[in-house]
């Protein structure tokens, strides 16, 4: 930097041809540095609300809700131990059950379905795909009243299995579309070769197809986990005490003790951390899942 500055200075001051030519790359490097700095700045501003939540979670209550804001403080784990001691275990357990089992169900249903619409396509494949994606676009509010009434009649309100089945239905279309895009990348020759060698359908699936789409299965599972873990609307309406999940816990924390910002922040960090980590890991596959497999 120190050597470049005089060059650009001399070029603007005197501007002889020779020095102007050497100034080009130097100035571009400075420009690139400024752009990088700007990008970082924008990213940090964008990230600030999350950062502030994390900082607040390590503060004492008085520091968390002070005006002006407290920037320097002695970090404490008090809030985390208080949250963990306040019986959040059952909420997390419910969220883990709803997320893990629904994701498992989604994979069990979606992988064969995706196989059926890509490797050995059934007739009217496009109609089937269209149907799946249209259910994903169906607003939940349009079906929530009957679901609530039926669940009430069946006596499965406030039952975690109700959420498991609904989350399975919620993520299934996305999973079918995403797995389809992975199946389509499998070269046909490999499958034909396996068939020629006399491998049965099941063997072909187990030994050849599944290992090839394994990364796709993992990415699909991660996306389902993200959506199931964050889901609030169905959990709010269909659960009360026994089956309440983490988002419901956050909201009830907020309404009953809204002033305890530090504790609320700690609970929020704990609630969002699993999915944030899952999302960071699945970054590369995120686009593919969000665009229903349209963009790779």
């Amino acid at each position, binding site marked *: 930097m120190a050597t470049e500055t005089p060059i650009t200075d001399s070029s603007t001051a005197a501007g002889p041809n020779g020095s102007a030519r050497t100034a080009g790359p130097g100035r571009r490097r400075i420009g690139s540095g400024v752009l990088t700095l700007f990008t970082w700045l924008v990213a940090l501003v964008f990230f600030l609300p999350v950062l502030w939540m994390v900082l607040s979670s390590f503060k004492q209550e008085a520091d968390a809700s002070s005006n002006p804001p407290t920037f320097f403080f002695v970090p404490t784990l008090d809030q985390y131990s208080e949250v963990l001691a306040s019986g959040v275990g059952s909420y997390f357990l419910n969220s883990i059950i709803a997320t893990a089992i629904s994701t498992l169900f989604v994979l069990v249903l979606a992988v064969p379905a995706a196989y059926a619409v890509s490797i050995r396509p059934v007739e009217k494949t496009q109609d089937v795909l269209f149907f799946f994606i249209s259910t994903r676009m169906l607003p939940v509010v349009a079906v929530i009243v009957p679901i609530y009434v039926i669940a009430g009649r069946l006596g499965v309100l406030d039952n975690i299995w109700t959420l498991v089945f609904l989350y399975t239905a919620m993520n299934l279309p996305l999973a079918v579309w995403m797995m389809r895009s992975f199946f389509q990348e499998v070269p046909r020759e490999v499958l034909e070769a396996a068939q020629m060698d006399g491998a049965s359908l099941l063997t072909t699936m187990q030994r050849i197809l599944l290992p090839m789409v394994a990364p796709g299965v993992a990415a699909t599972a991660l996306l389902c986990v993200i959506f199931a873990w964050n889901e*609030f609307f169905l959990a709010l309406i269909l659960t009360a005490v026994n089956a309440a999940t983490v988002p419901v816990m956050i909201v009830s924390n907020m309404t009953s003790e809204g002033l305890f910002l530090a504790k609320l922040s700690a609970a929020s960090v704990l609630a969002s951390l699993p999915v944030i980590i899952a999302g960071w890991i699945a970054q590369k596959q995120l686009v593919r899942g969000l665009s229903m497999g349209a963009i790779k």
Partner: protein
Amino acid sequence: MATIVNTGGTSTAGARAAGDAAYARRDKWQRRMPLLPALIFTIILTQIPFLLTIWYSLRSWNLLNPASDVFVGLQNYAAIFTDRTFRQVAVNSVLYTLGCVAFAMLLGIGLALLLDRKFLGQGVVRTLLITPFLIMPVVSGVLWSISMFNPTYGLVNWFIGLFGIPAVAWTSQYPILSVLTALVWQWTPFMMLLVLAGLQSQPKDVLEAAQVDGASPLNTFFYLTLPHLRRYIELGVLLGAIYVVNTFDQIYVMTAGGPGTQSANLPYYIYQRAFLGFDVGEAAAMGVVVVVATIIIATIALRLIFKSFMSTEQ
């Protein structure tokens, strides 16, 4: 069957044809089998409730008063279309959706352009930027309504206070703007990721050729990059719109639709009518209206996905 009759000259040929037909039928079912569980499951959990919603929408039914459950025809639809609140929340829904998608897309394009070059810490910056999308929507509502927009200790009021601007009660004075801010913050990474995928799929040799031919970066952007990005932007706008129309969590947490119903959207209003007002009939009718509106957007979206992306891979 027709083939059997036609070719049924000798008995052996007939048997072979029958075998072929049976094989074809078995093969058809073998192809369908893996699809059926998913299909049946989806139909039971989505289509049956929706048919029931239509049925409920034709009845006057209050959950607290089982005796009220009678067939009323299209009365609920007449009631909601003359309901001023319904019209207001419908307008809000459009406002949230268009506002969020437009701002998020503009910011997303900007961020994607910043990210589409090699620089120190590129991966970290990208990771920081996608975080708002991953954060639990309920938590993002908490974050904005309390940490950022709280009138007494929120960061935003402290920041504008540095410039001598008096404190603002954001979520009660500007409820729609507050919710919209949280929504744009959450959806910008989504748009950014789609646009970035578009930028990175751009053939590099074309860009280099443009540079060699002396095109300015601005010209390259408007005449080469932007047309290439078009289908990615369209996809982002339509998919984003379908998701944002269903916004519920942030409104529930930040404003509870208030003051009054000023900041409610359709999903929130339906929730209020069904689960706080227990008016099943009208809530169901509103649900049907939302679906019809969504189908219109979704049809355009699906056609687009099929046209611009499926055609390239098949």
